[in-house]
């Protein structure tokens, strides 16, 4: 693999990390739910894209239009039926954090169990746009380029919505000061439910994007949750641009390590960067700002 190929592969992976980390940062920053089943939403979406493509011959791009609203709706229901009760009874933020971690930890096994029953534990993939494209002398699969373009454009759209509209500004206000948000007329519970659902929609988008170029298994959710969490903390909780930069950085580093050092060391490299960032800048590379 040439350096260019490795860098592009790293950016593709990093773009995906950034996309899913944005969803997690919405759920954690605005809805204040630490969702350990987040990665399983991603994997569920990947399987949904697999069924749509393999069983029903629905192209994954079209699949996005079905799976993303599905992820939104499912997450909304999970919030309304389960998590909102935790929010209502939590005395403070710490209590909600503990409750939501325990609850979504259980949810993780429920989703994973269902996926295992339906699809078994094997690696799954499908072939889509698997043609090589020449970029500066490096051969890159078209599906990877599409994945990168999708991740970046979805992430950028979200960023613009959150920073340039009143609606998005209101969501950021709930993230930084929920009580003050209520004083300007924002229904904080509704905003939280919506942010959680939106995060689920982003997870679903991430899942479809991942399935375009990667193999996945029913049990891979945990890894995605961990990586998204690392990217969120590295970028600064609630910081979307931070998540984007941290995601790209992590993807590139992981790919370089697995290409030039040893594939077995990628996770170790991930945690090494994470530790360095935590020790050096515990508030994240870009701080916990509301933009």
């Amino acid at each position, binding site marked *: 693999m040439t350096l260019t190929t490795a860098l592009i592969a790293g950016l593709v992976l990093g773009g995906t990390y950034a996309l899913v980390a944005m969803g997690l940062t919405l759920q954690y920053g605005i809805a204040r739910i630490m969702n350990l089943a987040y990665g399983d939403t991603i994997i569920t979406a990947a399987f949904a894209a697999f069924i749509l493509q393999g069983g029903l011959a629905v192209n994954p791009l079209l699949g996005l239009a079905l799976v993303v609203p599905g992820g939104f709706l499912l997450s909304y229901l999970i919030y309304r039926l389960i998590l909102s009760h935790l929010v209502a009874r939590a005395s403070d933020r710490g209590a909600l954090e503990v409750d939501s971690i325990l609850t979504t930890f259980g949810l993780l096994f429920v989703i994973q169990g269902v996926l295992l029953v339906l699809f078994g534990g094997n690696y799954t993939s499908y072939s889509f746009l698997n043609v090589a494209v020449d970029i500066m002398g490096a051969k890159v699969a078209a599906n990877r380029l599409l994945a990168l373009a999708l991740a970046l454009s979805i992430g950028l759209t979200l960023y613009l919505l959150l920073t340039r509209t*009143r609606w998005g*500004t*209101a969501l*950021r*206000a709930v993230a*930084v*000061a929920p*009580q*003050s*948000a*209520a*004083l*300007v*007329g*924002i*229904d*904080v519970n509704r905003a939280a439910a919506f942010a959680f659902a939106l995060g689920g929609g982003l997870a679903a988008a991430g899942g479809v994007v991942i399935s375009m170029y990667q193999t996945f298994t029913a049990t891979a959710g945990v890894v995605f949750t961990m990586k998204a969490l690392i990217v969120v903390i590295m970028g600064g909780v609630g910081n979307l641009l931070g998540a984007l930069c941290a995601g790209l950085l992590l993807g590139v580093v992981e790919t370089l390590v697995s290409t030039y050092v040893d594939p077995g060391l990628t996770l170790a490299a991930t945690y090494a960067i994470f530790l360095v960032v935590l020790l050096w800048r515990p508030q994240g590379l870009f701080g916990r*700002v*509301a*933009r």
Partner: protein
Amino acid sequence: MLSLDEISVRYGKHLALDRVRLSVREGETVVILGANGAGKSSLLKAVAGLVRADPGGAVTFRGTSVSGLPAHRVLEAGMALVPEGRGIFADLTVEENLLLGAYARRARHGEGKMRELVLDLFPKLAERRRQIVGTMSGGEQQMVAIGRALMSAPDLLMLDEPSLGLAPVVVGELFEALARVRRTGVAILLVEQNVKASLALADRGYLMEVGRIVGEGSAAELRGDPAVQRAFLGLAS
């Protein structure tokens, strides 16, 4: 326009408000005076929907009950609170704070006009549109807080110790601004420690002590009341 009947608030076993009765008429400016811990903030919070009052009492606004409504619905009904400590979005810009001030449905229709009024009242906010509010001085932040509350086009503006921590000159400017807000016809319910300035602004006032209303009267009466003078104005009797 606003009336509180037998409003009690408890924090655990502690009774912070004990069957309070109070009213504000259309366009009126009313001040609540009382020592630290008297329950002034609890009273405003109970009206604004930030703390829950005991079920025995009732808060009525323009003929409809607003008891037990969550804060965002109280705002939508026409009452805006500038809380103790201002409650602005420190991480957002001046512009974004004002934008969110007009988040309520009731505010959208006259948003442009309100913005003009606010910027006319506080010209500094226009100059500092892009500044992150957390980096502003205390007086400027108070302008943002009041400006944001006005953006919701309230019929009643509630302020909890807006002059706290401000330099005397800035306090003067603040009360001038409030006098102008008053002239626009907005009713004001003000909690203050600055008795002199607030009695000069207000039409009427209430005195609070440990959770109870212990006196009320016109601003002129209260200014002349020896109890007020002893307790708050620091004058020898």
